[in-house]
C-alpha cells in the first residue's frame, strides 16, 4: 500500500494541529507529512481536498453480541459496521453469553477482533464489574484487566447495590481502570419503557423517571468522594439533573467522566408517539430541555465523550408490541453524521472538539495509548467528509441489525475511510 493523501485538513487534538497537508503512507506507516508532496513513483494519489484527516475514532460503548447472541451481531459484522462508521476502535460491553466476566472470554473477544476485517478495528473488551453481571460478587477484575479489559461495567444493568459499588470502585482503583456505570435506580424504573413525563402520560406508557438516573449518579458521586482514587465514568448520560451533578463533581475535582449517545441529543421523547420500537432504548429519549442541556454539556466540556451504545437487535425481536421490545438501537454508522450535523453544523462544537470527544478523550479515560500522527508512526486515522449530504438507509447498514430510528434522516457529513494496522478501507 503506497498512498499519497493530497490536501486533507489534518486535525489533531493532541498537537492542536489544524492545517492542510499532504501525507505519504507506505505499508500503513506515515512516511512524510508536508504542505506539498509530489507523488513518488508507484504511489497512488488520493485527493482529500475539503476532507478532514483525524486520529482514528473510538466508540467506547458498543454491544457486539458475541459470544452468545450472534443472530444480532458478531464481532465481524460489528467491526465492519465500526469501520464503515469511521471507527478504528470499539469497546464492547460484557453483556454477552457468557458474560465477559472471565479472562478467557475477554481474550476470545480481543483475539477475534484481530482476526476480522483485516484488523482494521481494534476491539477492547469492557469486563463485567460483577460475576455474571448479577450485581452480587465482584468479577475477577485484575485477571480481566490483564486479559485486556479497559473498563468494568455491568452495562444493561446498573451496579445497583451500594456495598458492591463501593468494593468495585475500591478494587478497580488498584489498576486505574474506570468503573463505567449504567446509572439507573431499578426500584424507580420497574417496567418503564420510555421517559416519564408529558409524552408517556399522553401515550399511556409506563415511565422511566429521570430521577432514576440522577439518584444513581448522585449516590456514586458521594462514594467517589469517599474513594477518590477510583475512576468513575457515567455511561450514556441522558438527563439534565445527572449532568448538573457531574458538572458539580468535576468542579470539586473528583475523578469523574461521562459520555453521551448521539440519539440523546439528536432526538426527544416526542418521537415515541409513533410507537416505533426503534425509539426504545435505555436510558430512554428524554425531553427537549434535556437534549439542549446535553448539547450545553458537550460545549462546556462536562461531557467528555460521545459513544453510541450501539445495541443491535433483529427485526423480529423489535417488531413486537412496544412494551415487549428489547431496549437499544444501532449507532456506529450514523454517529459521525449526526455529530457533524447536530453539533458541528449547529455551532455546538468545533471539529477539533468533536474529534477530541470521539478519539482523544475516550482513549485517555481508558488509558489507551494516544494516537500520534507523525512521520514514522503507523497510520491510525479516520478520514471525514464534512460536507457530503446523505440519507440514512437502514438497508445499507453493515451491521447485522437494522434497528435505527434515523432511517430516512438527512445528514451532512460522514466518515469515508479509516487506516489502522496497515489496512485501509478508503477508496
Amino acid at each position, binding site marked *: 500500500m503506497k498512498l499519497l493523501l493530497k490536501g486533507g485538513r489534518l486535525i489533531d487534538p493532541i498537537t492542536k494541529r489544524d492545517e492542510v497537508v499532504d501525507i505519504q503512507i507506505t505499508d500503513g506507516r506515515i512516511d512524510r507529512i508536508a504542505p506539498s508532496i509530489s507523488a513518488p513513483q508507484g504511489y497512488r494519489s488520493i485527493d482529500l481536498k475539503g476532507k478532514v484527516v483525524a486520529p482514528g475514532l473510538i466508540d467506547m460503548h458498543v454491544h457486539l453480541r458475541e459470544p452468545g447472541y450472534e443472530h444480532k451481531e458478531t464481532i465481524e459484522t460489528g467491526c465492519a459496521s465500526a469501520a464503515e462508521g469511521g471507527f478504528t476502535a470499539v469497546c464492547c460491553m460484557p453483556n454477552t453469553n457468557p458474560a465477559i466476566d472471565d479472562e478467557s472470554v475477554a481474550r476470545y473477544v480481543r483475539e477475534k477482533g484481530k482476526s476480522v476485517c483485516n484488523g482494521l478495528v481494534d476491539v477492547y473488551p469492557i469486563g463485567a464489574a460483577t460475576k455474571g453481571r448479577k450485581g452480587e460478587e465482584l468479577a475477577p477484575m485484575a485477571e480481566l484487566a490483564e486479559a485486556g479489559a479497559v473498563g468494568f461495567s455491568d452495562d444493561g444493568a446498573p451496579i445497583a447495590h451500594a456495598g458492591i459499588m463501593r468494593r468495585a470502585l475500591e478494587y478497580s482503583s488498584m489498576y486505574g481502570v474506570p468503573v463505567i456505570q449504567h446509572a439507573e435506580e431499578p426500584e424507580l424504573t420497574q417496567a418503564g419503557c420510555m421517559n416519564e413525563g*408529558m409524552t408517556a*402520560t399522553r401515550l*399511556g406508557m409506563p415511565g422511566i423517571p429521570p430521577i432514576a438516573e440522577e439518584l444513581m449518579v448522585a449516590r456514586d458521586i458521594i462514594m467517589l468522594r469517599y474513594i477518590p482514587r477510583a475512576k468513575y465514568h457515567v455511561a450514556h448520560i441522558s438527563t439534565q439533573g445527572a449532568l448538573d451533578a457531574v458538572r458539580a463533581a468535576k468542579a470539586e475535582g473528583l475523578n469523574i467522566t461521562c459520555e453521551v449517545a448521539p440519539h440523546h441529543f439528536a432526538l426527544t421523547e416526542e418521537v415515541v408517539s409513533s410507537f416505533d420500537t426503534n425509539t426504545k432504548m435505555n436510558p430512554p429519549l428524554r425531553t427537549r430541555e434535556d437534549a439542549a442541556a446535553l448539547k450545553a454539556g458537550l460545549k462546556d466540556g462536562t461531557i467528555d465523550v460521545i459513544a453510541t451504545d450501539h445495541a443491535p437487535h433483529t427485526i423480529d425481536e423489535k417488531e*413486537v*408490541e412496544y*412494551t415487549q421490545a428489547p431496549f437499544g438501537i444501532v449507532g456506529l454508522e450514523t454517529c459521525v453524521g449526526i455529530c457533524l450535523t447536530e453539533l458541528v453544523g449547529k455551532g455546538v462544537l468545533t471539529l477539533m472538539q468533536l474529534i477530541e470527544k470521539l478519539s482523544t478523550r475516550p482513549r485517555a479515560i481508558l488509558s489507551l495509548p494516544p494516537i500520534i500522527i507523525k512521520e514514522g508512526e503507523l497510520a491510525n486515522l479516520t478520514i471525514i467528509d464534512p460536507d457530503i449530504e446523505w440519507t440514512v438507509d437502514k438497508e445499507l447498514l453493515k451491521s447485522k441489525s437494522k434497528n435505527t430510528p434515523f432511517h430516512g434522516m438527512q445528514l451532512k457529513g460522514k466518515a469515508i475511510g479509516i487506516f489502522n494496522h496497515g489496512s485501509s478501507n478508503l477508496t
Partner: protein
Amino acid sequence: MKLKSRHLLGLDGVTKEEITLILDTAASFREVLDRPIKKVPPLQGKTVVNLFFESSTRTRISFELAERRLSADVVNFASAGSSTSKGETLKDTARNIEAMKIDMVVIRHSAPGSAQFLTRVLDSNIINAGDGWHEHPTQGLLDMYTLREKFGTLEGLRVCILGDITHSRVARSNIFGLTTMGAHVSICGPSTLIPRDLEHLGVKVYHRLDDVIQEVDAFNVLRIQLERQKSGLFPSLREYHRFFGLTKEKIARAGKPITIMHPGPINRDVELSADLADSEHSVILQQVTNGVAVRMAVLYLLGTTN
C-alpha cells in the same frame, strides 16, 4: 364528510368535526336498536375479526352485536387457547388471520400502541378496543354520546373523571375527546394514580372530592383495580372509598343533580356506592346501550369508505 383515517386508534388528534360525525351517525343507528328487527345491511359481505388478547365482556359483546347488526360476518379470537399461548408473536397471529381474507380487525391488547402496530403489519381497517393504558376510543365516544344525549351539548359541559387515571385508557380517551369538544374536564384521584404533567392535556387536577363536587355536571367514575393497592399505590380500599369513593351523601353536598357514569365493571361500594350506581342520576346502562350504536357508527364509517 368522511373520517380522515381508515383506522380508529384513539381520540388523540381526532377533530371536533370527526367526533361530531361519529356521534351523529351513532344517533341514527341508536334508533335502529329500538326497532323490532335490529339489523341493517351496510357491512354485508365484510368480515370483521375481534382480536381480544385481554379478557372483556362488555366491550367484546358490544362490538360483536354492532358488527352483526350491520350484517358483517364476525369471527372472535380470544388469546386463551390460541397460538399466542404457544409463543406466537402478535404480528404472526394477525398476519395469519388476515391471510384468511378479512376486512376489519378490532383489537384489545394490554400493550399501548398495539393497535397502531397492527396498522403497520396489516392492510385491514383497525379499530382499537383498548390498548393498555393508552386509549379506548369507542368508550370515550360512547361516554360523549351519553353526555350529549343527556345535556344536549358537550360545549362548556363540566365533567370530572374520578379515580385511577394513570392506568386508565378510558380516562385518556375521555380527556382527548371531551377537551376537543369544548368540555371542561377535571380530574380527581390520589396523587399516586395521576400521571405526571397531566395538566398539559388541558385538564384541571384535584385531589379532594369536595373541591370538585361543586363544579361539575357529571362524574365519570373509573374502576379501581385491586392490584394497584397491592403494588403500593394507595394504602387500602377502605381509605380509597372514604376519600375518593362517590356516594349519595357526598353528591348531596352539591345541592343539585350530578350525572354518574362508569365504564364498568363496577366495584360496588368501592369507587361508587351501590345506591348511587342504581339511582336516577346514573346513566350507566344507557352508556352500555349507546355503546352498540357508537360502535356501529365507527364500523360503518370505516368499513364503507374504502
